């Protein structure tokens, strides 16, 4: 098989045309925006309580189902303008997924706040299994589908040689950046954000100064879930089909993105996501699809060798 692969490259060298390269950049950017949105949830939770929330991929999966439910609801209510449908579906999905995120923290992590570091980790794996199987039993194992809402495409170029981005993909990129900007504003400029940052730096001191740390941690879980819901809605509208198992692969990828960008850092999550998307896309497009995941994880390992706290992460300060 290896011999064949080699000969593939010799008999048919890939044309390195500009429009193909540009198209691969778009493919990677769109995919990376989704990874980045989900990575935010991992990074925020890690930043504030130093725990990897392994159930986060499942929260993303839940949001895909909530998107379909919201779409059905709006259709039943007779909302038919695509613009309104998108806005309302996003709002409903984010709201209900954030509630899930909040509830998961309340039920599975808060009671273990005082326990050792491994207990919440195991609890997270348990939540992940429970959610996956709950959805499987409640919604069935078959994949579900939603119809395409936007089907236009923007094409640049002539005849066969064009670069294109579908309206759905534009929506993904724009909404991803808008929600990241909104989140950054909340964290940097509001009283809530200040409380979040204070809790991240020193929970005990924050508590002494009157910050309700438990509430802030719950809010962080809800915010992270909300961002995953944005990704879940956009992905569901774009790819059309989903099932109870989609949280796993995407969750692992987003976690990788968070580590790559520097876990704990918000801009790092987005940067890591986009780099991961681009790495996958370019490797798959110009080298080989079989090994794109191997390549993506090699990039991660190399980055961690030279920058152990990720691209934008701050090195851990030893507290004495």
């Amino acid at each position, binding site marked *: 098989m290896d011999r064949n692969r080699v000969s593939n490259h010799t008999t048919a060298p890939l044309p390195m045309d500009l429009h193909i390269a540009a198209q691969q950049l778009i493919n*990677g950017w769109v995919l990376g925006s989704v990874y980045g949105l989900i990575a935010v949830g991992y990074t925020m939770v890690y930043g504030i309580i130093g725990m990897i929330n392994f159930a986060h991929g499942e929260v993303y999966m839940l949001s895909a189902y909530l998107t379909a439910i919201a779409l059905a609801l709006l259709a039943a209510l007779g909302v038919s303008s695509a613009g309104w449908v998108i806005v309302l579906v996003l709002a409903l999905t984010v709201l209900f997924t954030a509630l899930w995120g909040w509830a998961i923290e309340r039920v599975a992590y808060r009671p273990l706040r005082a326990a050792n570091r491994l207990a919440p980790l195991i609890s997270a794996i348990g939540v992940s299994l429970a959610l996956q199987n709950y959805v499987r039993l409640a919604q069935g*194992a078959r*994949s579900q589908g939603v119809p395409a809402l936007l089907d236009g495409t923007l094409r640049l170029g002539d005849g066969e040689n064009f670069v*294109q981005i579908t309206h759905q993909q534009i929506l993904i990129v724009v909404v991803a950046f808008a929600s990241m900007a909104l989140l950054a504003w909340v964290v940097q400029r509001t009283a809530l954000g200040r409380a979040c940052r204070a809790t991240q730096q020193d929970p005990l001191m924050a508590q002494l100064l009157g910050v309700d740390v438990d509430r802030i941690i719950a809010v962080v879980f809800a915010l992270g879930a909300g961002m995953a819901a944005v990704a879940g809605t956009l992905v569901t509208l774009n790819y059309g089909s989903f*099932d109870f198992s989609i949280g796993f692969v995407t969750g692992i990828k987003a976690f990788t993105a968070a580590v790559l960008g520097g876990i704990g850092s918000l801009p790092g999550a987005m940067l890591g996501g986009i780099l991961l998307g681009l790495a996958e896309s370019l490797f798959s*497009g*110009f080298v080989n699809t079989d090994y794109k995941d191997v390549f993506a994880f090699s990039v991660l390992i190399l980055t961690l060798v030279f920058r152990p706290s990720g691209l934008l992460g701050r090195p851990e300060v030893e507290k004495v």
Partner: protein
Amino acid sequence: MATVGGGETGWRGVGLAVLTAWMAWGTAAAAEPLRIGIAGPMTGAYAPFGEQFWRGASMAAQDINASGGVNGRLIELIKADDACEPKQAVAVASRLVDSDKVDLVVGHFCSSTTIAASSAYADAGMMQITPGSTNPKVTESQIPTIFRTCGRDDQQGSVAAEFIVKKLQAKAVAVIHDKDTYGQGLADAMRHRMGQLGVKEVIYEGITRGEKDFNALVTKLKSLKVDAVYFGGLHNEAGPFVRQMREQGLTAAFISGDGIVSNQFVLDAGGPQFAKGVYMTFGADPRKISAGKSVVDRFRKEGYEPEGYTLYSYVALQAIAAAVKGAGGPDGAKASAWLKANTVQTVMGSKSWDAKGDLKDTDYVMYRWGSDGQYAQME
């Protein structure tokens, strides 16, 4: 299983013989039910195929029981879920053998699981019939008690290759697979035959099961100016793949195998507007064979369309019933020997098996998905 040495197998054999004898005595006394395990992906992303198995087997069991059962024993089905995971298939197989104490097995679906589980059944001297595993290796492992009611991927791949080369006259063909035993095996079989016909693929690559975004690969296919894409894999990945091809304006023909023979394919592709025009190979439509008309009608009356492997599963049960009757009991070796020597009348016509357990006649043909979201056999 790995810890069982050569010396112990002898004792196992004796133990098994005693057990069989005891069970035979029990049967004579109380006409115990004939327990048949139905193993396949009952949950998970590939559950539609498990449902086809279960529906077909249930209907067959009902019909056989209504006419008095097999040798006076009524058929009892035990559902077993492997989720299309080889590891889980091994666990499920030992459960069927050791704790459910089934007499025979119909299963599994994914070739990787059928192969993984087969040694557990073979060690127990149990007959196994798969209605849906098409990888050649399934019957190439010298197990005398394994059968299938479907064709083989080397046959299926040949039909696809001839269609691509002779009918479509494609020159630049991409061969894509999902790195699984079934998907890659089928892609390799197609590629092998295509090579014999003088066409070499321009690209041969594997995607990852469970992913939804294949845009990078699609862009690459576009840059290679392919005019046909052959995909070895299942509908979960084939759907989004074909949709992204169409969205990027790649109009190349899309050809796949029996892994997409479920209406779920249209859903995964985002609707008939993307799925239409897709070609696939599958056995001549079993719903059109006159011998099965009354059974097909009854399925439809229940509101279930007996698509894909439903009738293959029905046939597997008919073959089991005939073999157990002919051999005088469910003993794996005897029933298998009987099935290889005789012809069985089934809802898909008369079937007979060769020494490996493959069907003597198979009939792969091309189908085309239409704009109504249904597939139809091509003339």
